[in-house]
């Protein structure tokens, strides 16, 4: 599948990207800036529409799945947290509330404890530090219990200390929950240690896909 921008001349953001991800697999997506990494992720949860091809989720064409259901099943954490005005608990309850589920206070507390934010439930979400906010954004995405998690350079907007904290958190969450994960990263070392496979994009095309050693070298 792919996406072409209707500009003059037409510009291919993602060009004939064909790959599969198995359940529980971590696929790191690497490549230079402007290679189409974020554009690829946006196609996977249908924030953007592919202009050719499609995505199969457990063999089902994702165009046949109601878009709200699809996005709940394919969660996403963006480069910045983009928390909503209100408390941390309200932010975490937002996703489940969209499909009529109420998330219990105890469950929110447990989720927060798990990401190192014990006692943050009633805090104003807009007063958190960058690292804390991104932890809440990760918890908010996980509260929907997604089958696949898309991580779009979730630590790129953080300072060095917060970055390593959030990266460690993500690594432990992925391992504990056996998450199926597509992780856009600039950190090749992280891709090497965390990913089962690495997909390298260049100018919107898949340049290489394989084990970290095959793609990134020993």
């Amino acid at each position: 599948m792919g996406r072409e921008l209707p500009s003059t001349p037409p510009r291919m953001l993602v060009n004939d990207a064909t790959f599969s991800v198995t359940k529980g697999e971590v696929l790191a997506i690497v490549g230079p800036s402007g290679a189409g990494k974020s554009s690829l992720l946006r196609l996977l949860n249908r924030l953007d529409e592919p202009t050719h091809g499609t995505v199969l989720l457990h063999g089902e064409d994702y165009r046949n799945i109601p878009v709200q259901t699809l996005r709940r099943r394919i969660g996403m954490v963006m480069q910045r947290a983009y928390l909503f005005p209100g408390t941390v608990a309200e932010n975490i309850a937002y996703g489940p509330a969209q499909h009529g589920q109420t998330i219990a206070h105890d469950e929110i507390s447990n989720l927060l404890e798990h990401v190192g934010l014990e006692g943050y439930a009633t805090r104003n979400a807009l007063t958190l530090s960058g690292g804390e906010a991104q932890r809440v954004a990760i918890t908010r995405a996980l509260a929907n219990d997604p089958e696949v998690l898309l991580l779009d350079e979730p630590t790129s907007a953080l300072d060095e200390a917060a970055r390593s904290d959030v990266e460690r958190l993500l690594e432990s969450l992925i391992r504990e929950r056996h998450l199926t994960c597509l992780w856009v990263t600039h950190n090749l070392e992280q891709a090497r240690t965390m990913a089962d496979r690495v997909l390298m994009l260049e100018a919107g095309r898949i340049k290489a896909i394989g084990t970290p050693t095959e793609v990134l070298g020993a």
Partner: protein
Amino acid sequence: MLEHFFPNQLTRGLIECLIAGLTALIVMLAARRRAPGLIKEVPLAELRGVLQIVAVGAILSFLLHGPRWTSIFVLAGMVIAAASIVRKRAKQIPRAFMLALTAISAGAGCILCLMALLGVIPLSITILIPVGSMVIANTMNTQSIFLDRLRGEVTAHVGEIESALALGATADHALSPYLNAAFRASLIPSVDNIRSLGIVWIPGIMAGMVLSGSSPLYAALYQFVVLTTIFSASAIACLVASNMVTRRLFSKHDQLLLHP
């Protein structure tokens, strides 16, 4: 003094326009350093304004002798012109002309019909057209503010809106806080006009009624009627626009189309 030199009302009117227009030009010349672009715009705007208002005056003097139903066509023409002006303000919103046309027609149309049916606005051309034009013009301003503010809110909160979509929210739900902000902002001038009535300003219609011999107390009450009518028309127009705009900002698969 002018009355003495120009006993003919039309000639006097032209001279008064000339004096007021020249004064505005002199003021603009004095302030040319602050806004050099306005030096060209002001004379053109004055020329356009005077020609338009003279044309309206000519049409009104023609209509005064015609049947009452002709006022419907004049008001419809004003609604189309208003929608066209709103479209220019909201270029980034797809199909903005139809949106504004529907919203202004619904807002101004419903309220003017209701007020005419209840007898609040007399079915006389000399009242229906001036009052109708005030309601349409103010509804137009509200629509321009609403769409401009909404565009600003959306382009400033793309991340938040797409985060909400990514969590499974519908486009309506994701857009709701920004629609509310735009709705409120667009109606603030109307509410402030009602609140400040008589204290900060005495609007034109009241002055006109007093000048034409109505009781000042009735003129004051009627001014309140006009301003609350404007508020109702503006609010209905914004409600209609709120319900129509989401599908213009998002694709049918709830993908945000408006980006900075």
